[in-house]
């Protein structure tokens, strides 16, 4: 049975000399499975501990990444597979990181709106509302509460659904 796949491609992992390529021992699978179950419990448990805005996220992502690596390396045989397949897989993650990272370099550093709004309490808190500032002068009394409620415009506004975009 010298023509088995992968035997000359994957030198290691199939030490038993059998023609079947790198059949992993059963205990590897059961071990992986237990690890995954254990980590699931850990991640659920960790979510009950309040670690702050980023803390919980980082812990959850860390555990998820360990789980994902285990699945990829063992269940998906990436550890014994061609290096090129690992490169393919990692490059996907790399490009995803580029995508998310650079997009966030925009969305995280835009945020000029609030500053302007605070400085410029014209009655235009809600650009979608039909009314606009009066011709004569901006009534100062009307402008002040609008500025106060400006942190979350849609939540505070009376009826966001009543003025949908034109269709």
């Amino acid at each position, binding site marked *: 049975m010298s023509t088995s796949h992968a035997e000359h491609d994957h030198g290691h992992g199939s030490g038993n000399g059998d023609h079947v390529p790198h059949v992993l021992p059963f205990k590897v699978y059961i071990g992986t499975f237990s690890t995954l179950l254990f980590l699931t419990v850990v991640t659920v448990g960790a979510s009950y501990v309040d670690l702050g805005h980023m803390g919980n996220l980082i812990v959850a992502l860390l555990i998820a990444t360990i789980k994902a690596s285990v699945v990829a390396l063992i269940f998906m045989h990436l550890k014994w597979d061609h290096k090129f397949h690992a490169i393919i897989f990692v490059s996907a993650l790399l490009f995803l990181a580029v995508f998310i990272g650079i997009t966030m370099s925009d969305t995280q550093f*835009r945020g*000029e*709106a609030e500053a*302007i*709004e605070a400085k*410029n309490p*014209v009655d*235009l808190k809600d*650009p*979608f509302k*039909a*009314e*606009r*500032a*009066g*011709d*004569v*002068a*901006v009534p100062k009394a009307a402008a002040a509460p609008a500025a106060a409620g400006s942190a979350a415009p849609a939540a505070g506004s009376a009826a966001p659904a009543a003025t949908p*975009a*034109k269709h």
Partner: protein
Amino acid sequence: MRLDPIELGSFWMPKQSSTIAQEIDTAWYIVYWLDVVMFVGLMVPLAYFMYRYKRRTAKDKVSDVTHSTTLEITWTIIPSIMVIGLFFVGLSGWMKAMVAPGNALEIRTTAEMYMWTFTYPNGNVSVNELVVPKGQPVKLIMSSKDVLHSFFVPEFRVKQDVVPGTYTTVWFEATENRDTILFCTEYCGVGHSDMMARVRVMEKADYDTWQETGLMPGEKPLPPAELGKKLYATRSCNTCHSLDGSRIQGPTFKGVFGRTEQIADGTSVKVDENYIRESLLEPNKKVVSGYPAVMPTYKGLLKETDIDALIAYLKTVQ
């Protein structure tokens, strides 16, 4: 609206009418001449090789040189340095265009399909006409009521998208005492190309007068009907209502006063002073049957005298 053409400052560019225009034009010419030199530098050898190495016989001796590491490095490094230089040239002008001076006059700008509304610090409003003083930085705080628009004044070399749900800003300081044109450059629908506005640059004193009295330099107060005629044109009534009886988006104004109109809900109404006033302030309350309810409200955009003037004018359109 009748707009004056954009004046050309050179074969390529419009006239420079703002303080940052010169720097942007300089950057433009730097890359322009660099491109010209590079293009000639590529095309002259190409033409020469085409002539010099044109095939003479089937057994021409051809070069067997297949690569030159020195050349490859040279023509990687030199362009790299050049483009990094270009980046910084671009960055420098752009930083100036992005950060408005602290003393800038702030004008609130709202874009919608298909008009521009400018609200000045004292509450004055102008539609499709941006009035700015010469020699003072002006910062526009812009938002859109519906879709993306973009603010572009070729003579000022400034451009900025106007985005719904957020504020974007643009600033400029006009240097030429004359009118120019503002375009919408982000595609926004059927009226995209009509979404132009006039930018009126005037002396600071004239600007102040206009802010107080609404009178342009050299203008006398108009009689109501004539003021109404002017408003008809400047407040975009003319984009939807014709004077000659033809159907555009809305009913024609020809003979509108005193006409009885069929309303979409089945009732009918006689067009009188009250109906005109209501149609301006709450346009979608009684829409004439067979026409779409697309008219924007003019509440806050027209003074009482303006409404009176429009009514007076409509009486004359027969």
